[in-house]
């Protein structure tokens, strides 16, 4: 084995593949071979490194130097200049960075001072190689669980860590497991909800593509804790690369005896299957997801009974979000006390945000719970784009809340935001500068909901339809007196009577847009001015 002088990490995710990452990779390898450097320089594939809209991104170690928008034609220059002569190719260095010209990994805009638990390995290890995951401490947690903690210990540890679901509902994870563990019926199932359909959210994809084994380990730990024996990963159909990587990872884990019967001589049996979704936002709701897994239309079920007692095929079933599960191995490995060192008292840990819109560096970040919106936008995402000002943000996805500048310094966590009638939701942050039209935004949100309503219940099916009717005419400047009030009324009825969270949550973007941007919205209805 050669001692490698330089590592070139190339980020392979859906975004970079589309931008031609595979071509760049080939060009780099070819060029390195041509220069006779193959013994010294290794090109490694890694998951997403959390920058989007910057084309193919590569990182050169040990310098930790980031290049963006790399084309195959650039390979020659990078190899000759940087790798051979040690002179960074300035024109390719990641731009839109705050302050510095050359940015070391730890200080790169997006990745700067991030508390990384969930994304610890993403962009660092080769996600297609189980050995790298193991080398980074992977599957240690499951060993600790088997030998030391036992199922009760895992639940205890996770309970003490204060972990709550990261999908939006923020339900205590350990409690779900406890319910399922006590529920009669066999077998019991764990489902990972990877049907990430929230517009502007792609954090799960980063985990799935960058660190699939972490998810597998998280699911194993959960199943071990509550007595589950079979797991399903319900994954958004568009995530082709995630699916491929997961399937590869599952296969590797099986080969290593980490999945299957009598795992690591523990007596614990567990296996996983990947199920591809078919394009329905409502399947992010856990009971709709279960229906879909059973091969049906994704209509939500009535609750109770909750899935923990009657879920998939009527058996006790835990549905956890990707990010939630990705927290678990680290909690079990390092203990609850360590985990509580991150975040706030009430809401420990970190949150992965997808930050998009009018910021300098859109992408993914992981920040401690309690980080303010200001820190996220200005410190992590490089602030507002060129000379513009912060107008507001849509936080929590399409069903989230619009927040105005007065909310910039509020600590963001699941509990604190509730007090401000806002939600963390899926962790999507869409930042708007002064050019953004709130009515446009609302229109988009309402159209989205109309399209994604499953059609089962009256308030959501017809409420969304009427809301679209109204917002469309307001957008055209043809709004009528009473239209805004009617929108509010409909959305309140939807909140109170919709069958599932999809319809219930639409009140939030409407009421919050009026809370922070009342004048702007009313200004669009001529008769009311």
């Amino acid at each position, binding site marked *: 084995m050669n001692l490698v002088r330089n590592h070139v990490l190339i980020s392979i995710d*859906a*975004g970079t593949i*589309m*931008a031609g990452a595979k071509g760049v990779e080939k060009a780099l390898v070819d060029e390195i071979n041509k220069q006779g450097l193959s013994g010294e320089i290794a090109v490694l594939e890694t998951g997403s490194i959390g920058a*989007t*809209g*910057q084309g193919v991104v590569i990182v050169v170690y040990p310098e930790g130097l980031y290049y963006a928008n790399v084309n195959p034609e650039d390979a020659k220059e990078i190899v000759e200049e940087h790798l051979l002569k040690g002179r960074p190719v300035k024109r390719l260095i990641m731009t839109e960075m705050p302050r510095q010209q050359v940015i070391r990994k730890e200080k790169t805009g997006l990745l700067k001072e991030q508390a990384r638990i969930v994304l610890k390995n993403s962009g660092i290890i080769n996600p297609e190689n189980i050995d790298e995951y193991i080398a980074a401490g992977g599957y240690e947690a499951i060993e600790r669980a088997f030998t030391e903690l036992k199922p009760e210990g895992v639940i205890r540890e996770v309970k003490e860590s204060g972990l709550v679901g990261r999908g939006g509902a923020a339900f205590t994870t350990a409690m779900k497991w406890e319910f399922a563990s006590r529920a009669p019926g066999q077998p019991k199932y764990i489902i990972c909800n990877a049907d990430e*359909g*929230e*517009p*502007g*959210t*792609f954090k799960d*994809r980063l985990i799935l593509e960058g660190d699939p084994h972490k998810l597998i380990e998280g699911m194993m730990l959960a199943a071990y804790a509550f007595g589950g024996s079979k797991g399903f990963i319900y994954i958004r*159909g*568009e995530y082709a690369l995630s699916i491929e990587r997961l399937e590869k990872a599952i296969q590797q884990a099986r080969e290593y005896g980490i999945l299957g019967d009598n795992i690591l001589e523990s007596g614990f049996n567990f296996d996983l299957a990947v*199920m*591809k*979704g*078919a*394009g*329905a*936002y409502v399947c992010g709701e856990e009971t709709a997801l279960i229906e*879909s*897994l*059973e*091969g*049906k*239309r*994704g209509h939500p079920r009535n609750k109770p009974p909750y899935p923990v007692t009657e879920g998939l*095929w009527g058996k006790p079933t835990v549905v956890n979000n990707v990010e939630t599960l990705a927290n678990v191995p680290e909690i079990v490995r390092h203990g609850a006390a360590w985990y509580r060192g991150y975040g706030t008292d009430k809401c420990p840990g970190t949150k992965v945000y*997808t930050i*998009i*819109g009018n910021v300098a560096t*859109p*992408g993914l970040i992981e920040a401690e719970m309690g980080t303010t919106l200001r820190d996220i936008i200005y410190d992590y995402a490089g602030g507002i784009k060129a000379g513009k000002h912060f107008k507001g943000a*849509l936080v929590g996805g*399409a069903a989230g809340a619009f927040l105005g500048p007065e909310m910039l310094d509020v600590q963001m966590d699941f509990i604190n935001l509730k007090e401000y009638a806002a939600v963390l939701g899926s962790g999507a942050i*869409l930042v708007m500068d002064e050019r*953004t*039209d709130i009515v*446009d*935004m609302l*229109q*988009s*949100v309402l*159209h*989205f909901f109309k*399209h*994604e309503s*499953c059609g089962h219940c009256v308030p959501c099916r017809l409420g969304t339809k009427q809301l679209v009717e109204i917002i469309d005419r307001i957008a055209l400047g043809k709004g009528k007196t009473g239209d805004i009030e009617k929108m509010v009324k409909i959305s309140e009825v939807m909140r109170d009577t919709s069958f599932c969270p999809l319809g219930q949550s639409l009140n939030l973007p409407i009421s919050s847009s009026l809370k922070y941007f009342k004048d702007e919205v009313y200004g669009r209805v001529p008769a009311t001015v």
Partner: protein
Amino acid sequence: MSEEKQCQCAEVQEEELYPRLEEVINQHKCKGEDLIMVLHKAQNLFGYLPRRVQEMVAEGLNVSLNEVYGVITFYNFFSTVPQGRNSVKVCLGTACYVRGSQEVLDKAQRELGIKVGGTTEDRRYSLDVVRCIGACGLAPAMLVNEDVYGRVKSPHLVDILKKYE
């Protein structure tokens, strides 16, 4: 004349796919819970889900036909009309929408003379919308087959489309 020829060609090809569908179905015999998985595979084969495919899937998986049709019409992924050789998808996610993707979509509909979900008569293009492809940084974005186009302005559209035969 040449069009007619092409049409028959497509039919012949479709005919050859049925034995392969049979194989897929046999792997999931009488397993109704695998319906969505099988439909994915069937659509991969045929590019869409014609009536005969639906009937075979229903029978093979022992699911009633009305349920199969109900599932197909529920999910965005599944199509009951033939797809064009090139799939054009305009992103209508929030970030793209506010950056004018509706205009791009309108333009695409006008240019191609089809509505969302439709296929041009020469089967060259089909047009659809997607809700966020995770390319928000490139808004407004569109996909042609596997290729992502960012910052699409409606005047560019024609040039982009022309590239795909």
